[in-house]
């Protein structure tokens, strides 16, 4: 309880007097500390999340009514592109790296990542990449003279991205922003792989790593494999646009389909890169709040590795409508369905963890429970879409949009909220408010289902994605109105969340070292942890070192 004064968080030397803002800012800019970098990743991810969320809301307002003229078609294209690009590259990725940065070294009992300065480099590359992307709004000359953000869609199909069809520099900003942030992401992934491989505390064998660390490790390895192909493809596109190369220039024999292959060879594993951290968070939160050890730990590890490997052989399911040969379609449909098996194993293991436990429905657990339900729905529509003939019918419709928003919000974002509620006390020393948290949960989950459950229907009725308006009387009107109302309800939830974070930072309830009665090493240090994490590097004998200390009469190492 002694570490409540937040001015103590970096070192005792600062404990007196107020530190000037400039000095604090300087500390954060030059830091190589994994905790500060982790928080900066998460904070910038949240800022990008709000921006992209506002874009989504504007698009929904436009689509609420048929033949609405709130936005023009060009603005709509830009918003749609920036929303997708931002959410994938500048929200999903920094959330992954943010939590990995903050939590992994603490959980494996290390003082920092393997290469602290490289970590800082990775973060700044990510951030400057994002800034460059958004600078396009001011600096890019579009078709109409004014600044123009990219408008080619987040997967930027060729040949729309060629100089002929995409004048000005908007597409170049898209390429460069992602290219630069990808370099940073690769650097951070190398850092994470190395950290987990070499920095574990004494006694922490691979079989005793918390599952959170295991999953993020597999995830970082996956990033190594799939992110550089994207970088390579972006470089090719850059060559096409600046040097007159012909990679994706169909006039000179180049192939537009090759871009699709390259993009989706990155793009589909990317979905797993984004969702694996969600699995990692659920694997941490569900056991602690069920008061039981995780069910089927070795199988969970095996399933994670399976997902990582299979995810690299499913990308063509984004391309069924291209008209590839039936053999390829069959293989990729089968592999896409196969990936549901390890994912299903995980779902059952989380249920097995909850089953018979003394479940405490605090806010993190609420999010994880909702995740289980929503993610099963998301997975089911995924298996539906993996069926080639159904995909031919539904591809590029709102059914697909509803499906992947179910995955990325119901799967990823719910768990990110769980993680924020779970580790906020560790990072700040103060609890997030439980009441506001429940309101946030209620409104957001309600709004989410109001938005994305009905969204499947206009898709089935034939509404294509990426249209900026539609004619009345096609049976889409009511559904679209409900979807837009759902967005407003979600926004209420987000406002509660923001208010919760701000007010809890100022005067939240003090957390203490271990507010959740947790079992992994981060709860053995203070909240917030000192710069060096642990006075003495801990030694572990089981997967739940703190359980062993709390229950010396029945320690885990007797059973593992």
């Amino acid at each position, binding site marked *: 309880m002694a570490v409540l004064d937040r001015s103590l968080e970096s070192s005792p030397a600062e404990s007196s007097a107020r530190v000037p803002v400039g000095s604090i800012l300087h500390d954060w800019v030059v830091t*190589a500390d994994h905790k500060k970098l982790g928080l900066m990743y998460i904070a910038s991810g949240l800022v990008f999340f709000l921006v992209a969320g506002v874009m989504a809301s504007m698009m929904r307002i436009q689509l609420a009514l048929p033949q609405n003229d709130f936005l023009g078609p060009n603005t709509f294209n830009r918003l749609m592109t920036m929303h997708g690009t931002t959410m994938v590259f500048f929200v999903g990725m920094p959330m992954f790296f943010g939590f990995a940065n903050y939590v992994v070294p603490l959980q494996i009992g290390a003082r920092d990542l393997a290469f602290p300065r490289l970590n800082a480099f990775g973060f700044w590359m990510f951030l400057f990449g994002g800034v460059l992307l958004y600078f396009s709004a001011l600096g890019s000359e579009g078709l109409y003279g004014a600044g123009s953000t990219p408008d080619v869609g987040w997967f930027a199909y060729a040949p729309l991205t060629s100089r002929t069809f995409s004048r000005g520099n908007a597409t170049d900003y898209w390429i460069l922003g992602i290219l630069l942030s990808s370099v940073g992401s690769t650097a951070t992934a190398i850092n994470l792989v190395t950290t987990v491989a070499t920095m574990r505390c004494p006694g922490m064998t691979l079989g005793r790593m918390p599952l959170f660390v295991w999953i993020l490790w597999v995830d970082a390895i996956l990033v190594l494999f799939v992110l550089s192909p994207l970088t390579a493809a972006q470089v090719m596109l850059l060559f096409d646009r600046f040097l007159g190369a012909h990679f994706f220039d169909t006039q000179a024999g180049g192939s537009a389909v090759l871009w699709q292959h390259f993009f989706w060879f990155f793009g589909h594993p990317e979905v797993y890169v984004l969702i694996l951290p969600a699995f990692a968070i659920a694997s941490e939160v569900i056991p602690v709040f069920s008061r039981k050890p995780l069910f089927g730990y070795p199988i969970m590890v095996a399933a994670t590795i399976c997902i990582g490997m299979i995810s690299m052989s499913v990308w063509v399911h984004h391309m069924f409508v291209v008209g590839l040969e039936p053999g390829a379609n069959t293989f990729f449909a089968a592999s896409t369905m196969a990936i549901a098996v390890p994912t299903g194993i995980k779902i059952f293991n989380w249920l097995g963890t909850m089953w018979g436990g003394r479940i405490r429905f605090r806010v993190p657990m609420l999010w994880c429970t909702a995740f289980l339900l929503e993610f099963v729905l998301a997975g089911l529509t995924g298996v539906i879409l993996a069926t080639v003939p159904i995909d031919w019918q539904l591809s590029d419709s709102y059914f697909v949009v509803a499906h992947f928003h179910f995955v990325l919000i119901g799967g990823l974002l719910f768990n990110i909220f769980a993680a924020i509620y779970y580790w906020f006390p560790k990072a700040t020393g103060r609890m997030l408010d439980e009441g506001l948290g429940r309101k946030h949960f209620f409104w957001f989950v309600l709004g989410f289902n109001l938005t994305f459950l009905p969204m499947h229907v206009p898709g089935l009725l034939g509404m294509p994605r990426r249209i900026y308006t539609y004619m009345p009387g096609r049976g889409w009107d009511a559904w679209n109105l409900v979807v837009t109302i759902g967005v407003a309800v979600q926004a209420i939830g987000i406002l509660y969340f923001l208010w919760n974070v701000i007010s809890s930072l100022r005067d939240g309830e003090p957390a203490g070292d271990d507010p959740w009665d947790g079992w992994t090493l981060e709860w053995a240090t203070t909240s917030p942890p000192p710069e060096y994490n642990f006075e003495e590097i801990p030694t572990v004998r089981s997967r739940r070192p703190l359980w062993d200390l709390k229950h010396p009469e029945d320690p885990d190492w007797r059973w593992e």
Partner: protein
Amino acid sequence: MSARRDDDRGSIRMPAPTAWPMLLAAGICLGFGGLVTNAIVTATGAVLAVIAAWGWIREVLPVQHLEEVALRPAALRAKDVRPSTARVDHLEVGQDGHRMRLPIEIHPWTAGLTGGLIGAGVMALVAAAIGVAGYGSPWYPINLLAATVMPSLSQAGTKELSAFDPTAFGIASVIHLLASLLVGALYGLILPLVPRRHALIGGLVAPLFWTGLLWAVLGVLNPALNGRIEWPAFVLSQVAFGVAVGWFVSRSEKIATLQDVSLAARAGIEASGLGKGRDEA
């Protein structure tokens, strides 16, 4: 390894804060940003990147720059983790008040198949009896079943359906036996997993369930049968089947499973610490 055990010095060496990585990132981003703005930006970025890279190298070579971080005073450190006063309850297999009920013993799968054959006989008898009572012919239900795959029969009238047809008899027998074996095998496997009321579920609920299923899809599978079927008689024959199989399966002798043995042991891995806890490591 060297960084450990240095708390007795009252401080810990951590990597010193440095701005070079940030400046290198800024330089690289400006360098590429020049492509879409102005060559001067690229030049500035390149210069910045070279300077920052050199600064970074000086920071880590020949030895990386560390700073001493003083340990917090003891009062501000994390408190020791204390033993909890809460009692630990282990879940036990078949524990009271807990729904976990793994099948420690199951019926052999052969019982399911044999039961299926017996059920097939009973069901055939009941169906034939209904055929005789309703249409004066035991072949009537058999021909209807064969109509699933015999287009000629699906257009036939009651008279043809009441006559003996050797092809239809053969086809109906194969369909009937296969379906009965399959359902019998399912009974053998699934019934032991159901916690209680085996007779009710096996004899009544399951037959009603698949009758409902058939009711929904029969129009597609077998329009002839769908047009002529009498559902009460149909349900009666299905229940006869269910009761027969359930009866046979439930009186077969159970065999033990390895459910209470750990996965590693079941997989045949020989290792220490399997199954029972170690008293002292």
